[in-house]
C-alpha cells in the first residue's frame, strides 16, 4: 500500500464506536502498517455523538482525518450519517447501518463488528490479522458472536460489491 487509508467510524455513545476502531487499528498494526487512531471521549459516554478516526499506511502524521479526506465512513447510527457525510472524500465509500440486518447477528451488540466485516471487504488486511485483532481487543466470551457478526458483515458487503 503506497497511500494512507483514512477511516472515520461514527455513532452514538455506547454503540461500540471506540471498540470497533480499536479492532481496526490493531488489525492494521498487525499487518505492518503505521497506524494512528484518535477520538474524543469524555462527555460522549452519555449517549452523545462519537467519532473515531483511524489512519494507516506507510507514514501517518496528524492523528485526525482532515474533513473531506476519509476514504471510508463507517456509521453505526442512522441519524449520524448526514452529520458525518462531509468527512468523505469524493469517491469515498459510505458503510451505513442499513447494510447490516441486526436479525442476522448472533448478538445484536456485535453490530459494530459486523460493519467492520463490511469494511474488511475493501481493505488489504488478512483474515488472520482481523481475527487476531478481535481476540486481542475483545474478551474471550465474546469471540464467537463477534466472529459471526464480522463474517455476516463481510458477506453483506461482498453481495453489494458484486451486484
Amino acid at each position, binding site marked *: 500500500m503506497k497511500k494512507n487509508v483514512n477511516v472515520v467510524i461514527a455513532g452514538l455513545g455506547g454503540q461500540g464506536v471506540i471498540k470497533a476502531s480499536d479492532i481496526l487499528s490493531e488489525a492494521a498494526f498487525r499487518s505492518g502498517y503505521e497506524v*494512528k487512531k484518535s477520538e474524543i471521549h469524555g462527555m460522549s459516554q452519555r*449517549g452523545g455523538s462519537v467519532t473515531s478516526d483511524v489512519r494507516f499506511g506507510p507514514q501517518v502524521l496528524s*492523528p*485526525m482525518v*482532515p474533513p473531506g479526506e476519509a476514504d471510508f465512513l463507517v456509521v453505526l447510527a442512522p441519524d449520524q450519517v448526514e452529520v458525518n457525510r462531509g468527512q468523505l472524500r469524493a469517491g469515498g465509500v459510505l458503510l451505513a447501518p442499513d447494510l447490516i440486518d441486526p436479525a442476522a447477528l448472533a448478538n445484536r451488540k456485535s453490530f459494530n463488528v459486523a460493519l467492520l466485516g463490511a469494511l474488511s471487504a475493501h481493505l488489504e488486511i488478512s483474515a488472520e490479522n482481523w481475527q487476531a485483532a478481535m481476540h486481542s481487543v475483545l474478551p474471550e466470551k465474546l469471540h464467537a458472536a463477534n466472529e459471526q457478526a464480522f463474517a455476516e458483515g463481510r458477506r453483506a458487503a461482498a453481495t453489494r460489491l458484486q451486484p
Partner: protein
Amino acid sequence: MSLTERQLLSGDSAIALAALHGGVALGSGYPGTPSTEILEYLAHIGGKAQWSPNEKVAMEVGIGVAYGGARSLVTMKHVGLNVAADPFFSVAHTGVVGALVVVSADDPGMASSQNEQDNRRYAVAAAVPMLEPADSQEAYDFTLAAMEISERWEIPVLLRVTTRVCHTQAPVQPRAAVPPPQPHFEHDLRGRNLIPSNARPAHRRLRQKLSEMTEWSELTPLNRLVPGDKKLGIITSGVCFMHAREAAPAASFLKLGFTHPLPLKKIAKFVRSVERCVVIEEGDPYLADAIRAAGLNVESKPEMFRFGELNVDRIRRILAHDHSPEPARPPVKPPELCDGCGHHVVFQALHNLDCIVAGDIGCYALGVLPPYSAMDCCVCMGSSIPIGLGLRHVLPPAEAKRVVSVIGDSTFVHSGMTGLAEMIYNPPPTGHVVVILDNSTTAMTGHQEHPGTGRTLDHAATSKVVYEDLGRALGIEDVRVFPLGKDCAGFQQMIVEALASEKLVLIVARRPCVLAAKSIREYENRDKCATGCAAPEALVP
C-alpha cells in the same frame, strides 16, 4: 503482550509504561479527562498508582515521594493544576531529590472541560522546565527524559500533553527498564522549610537552575530541526507538529520538545535561515510572544485560531492567510443523563420547585439541559456550596430560601468539605440546603474510585468517608439520607421541608450510577467473600 515489544498505545498509556520502565515508585492523581487513563494503565501493568481526593493532595503526596529519593508521577487535567498550583510553585523553590514529573493534560477545544486554558503558562509562572510530546512514542520518551531532567536539576518537571496526544493510539517502541533509585531520607531543613529567610536563597537557586537549563535547551535533541524548503519555516510543538507537517510537507521545521526555558539562540538561527517563519501552536500565543519578545520577526496565528484545537485544515488556512469564516461544525447529538440515572429524580424535583441551583462538576451538570434546565451555575470543582452560600447571604429572603447546592460524591470529597466548614462557620440567615448526589463513583470520567467509595484505584477495599457522619461531625444539625429510586414526590417533599426549615440541611441522595452498579456489586460481593463466606475454591471437591 510483552511490555517491551513495539505496540499500539495511547499517549496516556505510553506515559504510564514509561513510568513503569523508569522506576516510578508511586503515581498519584485525581481523575480528569484526558489524563485519567495514565494511572489506571500504570496500575494495570503492575505499577503502584493511587487516586487522591484532589490534585493538590496528589501533588503533595508526590512531593513526599520525591523528597524520599524515589521517583514520582503526578497526573491531572489542566484545571487540576489550578487546584495543585500552591504546592507546585513552592516545590519549584525547595527542589526535589527523586524525580517529580507533573503531567498536565490540557483540553484545547474543551471536549470535556469547563474552560480552555493553556498550562504552558504555568511552567513560566512556577519557573519549572516543560516538555511537550507530539505523539505516543514521544510521550514515552519524554516521560523518561522528564525523570532525568528532574533528578539532574533537582526540580519538578511539567510534562504538558493535550487531548490528541493523550487519546491517540500510535506505535511505541519501549526501552529496557532502568533500576529505580533506593528511597532514603536526608535532612535538608534550610532547603525545604520555606520560611522567608530560606525562601529568598531558594528563589535564587531556582533561577540559577533555569539559567543552566536555558543553555542545555540549546543543545538537547528534544528540540530538533527537520530540514526542508527555506521558503517556509515552521516553529511548533506538541501534536501541532504532526498536523503542520501534513499541511506543509515541504517546509523546514523547528520542532520544540523542551519548551521551557526556550532555546532562543537556536530559534533565532532558524528564523534567520528561512524566508518566512510561522509559529504554529494551539491555544495561547505562548511561543510566538516569547519569540517576538526576543526581537525576532515571526508570523503568529490570527486570534480566531486561539479557540479550539488546531488540525491540518486549520493550519492550511493559517499558512494561506485565509481568515474567512470556518465552516460550521455539523450539529451533533449532545450527551444526556442515562436512562435509570438517579439524578433524574433530583433535577425533576428542583425543576418543579423552581429552585435556584448552584451546581458543580460531574455528569449531573447535564441537569442544565432540557427537560430539567435545573442548574443555574457550574463553575469549578466544589464551588456549588460556597456559591450557594454567597447567594443566600445577599438575595432577598424569598429568593434566598429557594437556593440549593448540589454536588456529586467525588466532587464533594475533592473540594466540597471546606464548603461545608464555611456553611457551619458563616451560616446564612435563611439556612441552606446541600444535596450530595452520591452515585458511589466518579462517573463522569469513567467510574474511578475515591475516598467515599471505600475502594482504592484498583478496587480493593479500604477505609471510607461517610458523608452523613462527616456532616454531623461538622455540626450540621439536620442530616438526611434519601435512597433515590422512582419516588420523585418523596424527594421533592424532603426538599420542600428542608427549604422551609431555614436551617442548615445536608441531604445525601444515594443511588449507584447505573453504568457502574454491576461492577460495584461485584467488588462488594468479592469483599464480603474475602471476610465472610467460603472462598469459591473451597467448594470444588
